[in-house]
């Protein structure tokens, strides 16, 4: 508990945190509102309203990486491990604090996006089961992106490298998938890509056309996040601080 308390005190006493959280909300809601207003007929209203997640996640990556790499960049990490020598507890506390904040900001961002969608979409945003799943799943998606970012940052340490790696993994794998002509491999890549698979959770129209089912897709992202965190934890135990 003291570890969690310390990490919470850390995160709330740097001025950057609150601005990044505001950024997550603003950059999620604004693109969603634009997309909702311009949705072509036959489009997926939930997907359109929640388009901003694709942009807002970049700020989540920066926040997740900053909580770890910020300490490596300044040498502060040695102060942290001197006060809290149980490194895995520190990693768990960091992941919990950042993910908690991102889930809170994500909930606000998604609520804003849904409200904007309801107001701007031609037919409004009906509160059906799939739409609720898409909204709640989008909040969880951002939370998992935070975990992924913390894990990669522990592994890579350097902030620029970690942000580059996570954003590359998120944004480049779908582009690579479009370049692959073979339909089997095209679908496989889309199933393995953390962003494409994870965002299947937003699908409410023609769900069967997705390469992966909604919750399975979010599961793929969860596996990526877990793998990053476990690998980071192993490195943290073995390496000198």
């Amino acid at each position, binding site marked *: 508990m003291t570890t969690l308390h310390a990490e*919470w005190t850390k995160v709330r006493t*740097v001025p950057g945190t609150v601005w990044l959280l505001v950024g997550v909300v603003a950059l999620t809601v604004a693109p969603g509102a634009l997309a909702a207003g311009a949705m072509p007929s036959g489009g997926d209203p939930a997907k359109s309203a929640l388009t901003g997640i694709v942009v807002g996640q970049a700020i989540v990556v920066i926040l997740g990486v900053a909580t770890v790499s910020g300490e490596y960049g*300044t040498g502060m990490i040695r102060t942290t491990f001197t006060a809290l020598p149980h490194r895995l507890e520190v990693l768990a506390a960091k992941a919990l604090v950042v993910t908690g904040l991102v889930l809170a900001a994500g909930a606000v961002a998604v609520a804003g996006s849904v409200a904007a969608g309801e107001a701007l979409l031609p037919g409004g945003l009906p509160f059906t089961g799939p739409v609720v799943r898409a909204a709640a799943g989008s909040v969880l998606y951002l939370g998992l992106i935070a975990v992924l970012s913390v894990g990669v940052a522990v592994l890579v340490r350097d902030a620029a490298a970690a942000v580059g790696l996570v954003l590359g993994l998120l944004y480049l794998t779908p582009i690579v998938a479009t370049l692959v002509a073979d339909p089997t491999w095209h679908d496989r890549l889309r199933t393995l890509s953390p962003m494409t698979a994870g965002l299947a959770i937003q699908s409410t129209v023609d769900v069967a056309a997705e390469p992966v089912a909604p919750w399975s897709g979010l599961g793929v992202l969860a596996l990526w996040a877990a793998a990053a965190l476990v690998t980071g934890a192993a490195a943290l135990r073995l390496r000198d601080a």
Partner: protein
Amino acid sequence: MEATIEVTGLRKRFGGTTALDGMTFTVAAGQVTGFVGPNGAGKSTTMRVVLGLDAADAGHALVGGRPYRELRRPLHHVGSLLDAGALQPSRSARNHLLWLAHSQGLPAKRVDEVIAVTGLGPAAKRKAGGYSLGMRQRLGIAAALLGDPPVLMLDEPFNGMDPEGIVWMRTFLRDKAREGRAVLVSSHLMSELQDTADHLVVVGRGKVIADTSVAELIAAASGDRVTLRTPDRTQAMTVLGRAGGTVAATGADTVTVGGLTSGAVVALLTDNAVPFTEIAAHRASLEEAYMELTRDAVEFQAGQS
């Protein structure tokens, strides 16, 4: 728990460089132990191993009889200052101390206490990134004091301090030792530890060169020599040399004599009517004693690179 640091047979290599080569020493309670040696001798690496930040290839380090990584709320056992810059510059000094306090289950009241003790005062509300090195050292000391620990371990705490700060630090270290705590202070400048340290662990090239009390070290370096001030240096050197003394001119009017007691020197000079104005047992400075001890270590390093 007992107030000690025990370091036994530490070895560590960074790539092809041997940082620690069988480092072994013990820091006792109730005194200031100086940890001195040239840059690169392994002082900081030893301290990082003691704190569990770096893992040694061999050997072990114990604090109060236990490995640091096994301590719960370790700031109650050891207060340390390794790198005064190891903090997030955008956080205020007070908030830096606050998260540290929370990490040890300590209340915010304790933060205000250590701020007062270290003289940070109103500056504690400012961002730590804007602090001078001397101010950061004080902040580091405040952090080390949070848990009121029986053991203190400070790496180069005099760095960047102004004269007033150095006097404050000396008094602080002596006070903490008098309270019965074990205090380990590293420095690459022996002069900083003069009048502060009781005991010295002198290191070079990753191992201990000397582990001795300050009094013994100075006595050994001084030898049984006599320093003499005379307006007639040549005549004095001739007379004393003829009597079997080892004579060396150390200044325009000063001579150091070995192999003769001060009584014999006075008698010889008086008998031969050589004038002299001052005669005293030679007392080496701590700096001199230290230079003699570490000369080999430094030369070896210079030869290598």
